[in-house]
């Protein structure tokens, strides 16, 4: 009985520690990837167009503009603002 209790205790300790460690890695990896992409691949986010003052441009046109800029600039171009004339 005592042996079983000890085994359960070890399992609880090792198990919870492992789960917390892996999810800590999830948080660290997630933050690392976000930092990396923000730094090196800060692509224009079409879904946030309302916040960028482009709410009058529909999403299909926006996607076409993004694709065109990507193609012409070889993926290095970045859209900062879109004005309608």
């Amino acid at each position, binding site marked *: 009985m005592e042996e079983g*209790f000890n*085994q359960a205790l070890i399992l*609880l300790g090792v198990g919870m520690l492992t789960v917390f460690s*892996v999810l800590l*890695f999830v948080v660290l990896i997630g933050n*690392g990837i976000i930092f990396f992409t*923000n730094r090196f691949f800060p692509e224009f*986010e079409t879904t946030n167009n309302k916040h960028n003052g482009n709410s009058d441009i529909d999403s299909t046109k926006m996607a076409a503009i993004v694709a065109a800029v990507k193609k012409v600039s070889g993926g290095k171009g970045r859209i900062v603002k879109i004005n309608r004339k």
Partner: protein
Amino acid sequence: MEVFKQLYDMTALGPIGDNPGVLLMIVIGALLLYLGIVKKYEPLLLVPIGFGVILANLPGGNMGVVAAEMVELPDHRYLNLFEIASEYGIMNFIYYSLIKTGFLPPIIFMGVGALTDFGPMLRNLRLAFFGAAAQIGIFGVFFGAMALGFTPKEAGSLGIIGGADGPTAIYTTIMLAPHLLGPIAIAAYSYMALVPVIVPLVANRFISKKEFGIHMKKQDKLYPPKYKIKNIKAVKIIFPIVLGVVVAILVPSSVPLLGMLLFGNLIKEIGTATQRLSDAATGPIMNTATIFLGLSVGATMTAEVFLDLKTLGIIVGGFLAFAISIAGGITAVKVYNLFSKKKINPLIGATGLSAVPMASRVANELGLKHDGSNHLLQYCMASNISGVIGSAVAAGVLISLLG
């Protein structure tokens, strides 16, 4: 008269009369069908399982799954699949080729991955920790199970019900205690279907009125996140690749589940280039796997295996594991709130167990009941999705330490 006697002998009526347990199992199968069809409780699983139970228990059909000892030969060798099929029927062929090998749960996990969006978790990464705290039921119930006379392997399989993840529970049980597969699968899926009842039951006991009212959007305005994600698509593509490698190094035994989950997610996030793979993973492959998994899990529930005191222990222990997991997530949020300026609604901790997206929807509704403008769904999804990762890791730990 002889003709009638031969006709009677040909039917299953005689053996059914001799073994009333069979009748009880048919009633249980019918009850599962009722829950699936009428009550719509996890119908995709409960309908095949319920029908599998009925098929397995009708005598003479040769559809019940036999114990592993029956297909075992001396020197740790087994009958080949052709011999299993010819001697014990097609259900044993399906069980020993697709289930006992641990093949189907990871395949289903691939489909789950292709249906999962890590976006809410990536936008609220801190909330992922509550998905870890909510795994405590898995390990906590181990003590009680051992005290009730379960072996360590059986106790581990029982505990995994607290992860609230069907494929994970089935995979762990196949690896640790395959003879309990039927009752554990039934308990796991039944409690997942009962999330709308169990989550409010536990939440109302552990969360105060003031805590229910913690408004996440207002908290976000008071304490805004330090940075925004500028390229969510790239993040979502890189994330499963890097996480898969790290998990494979840290907990290799969880890779069959988590690896397939992350692969499924990757082919979804890549977009149009792998659209066909994603469609296959979430459609025909997942549906086929679900049919075979459900039918063969049901076929393991023969009267002599299921009608046992251990089944009762599994039903009670599974509920406790589930409830402890929810309470663990809530407690973790309460502890966090003691030390942080930015408060978190404890309902987010309650969704740290898997059961995606049902647990999040239920928590969201509970939050809205207390404050009509307090939409918690995206926050709950963050801990809910991390709970899927957490329960797969917990399964890996159980298999490593007890297997």
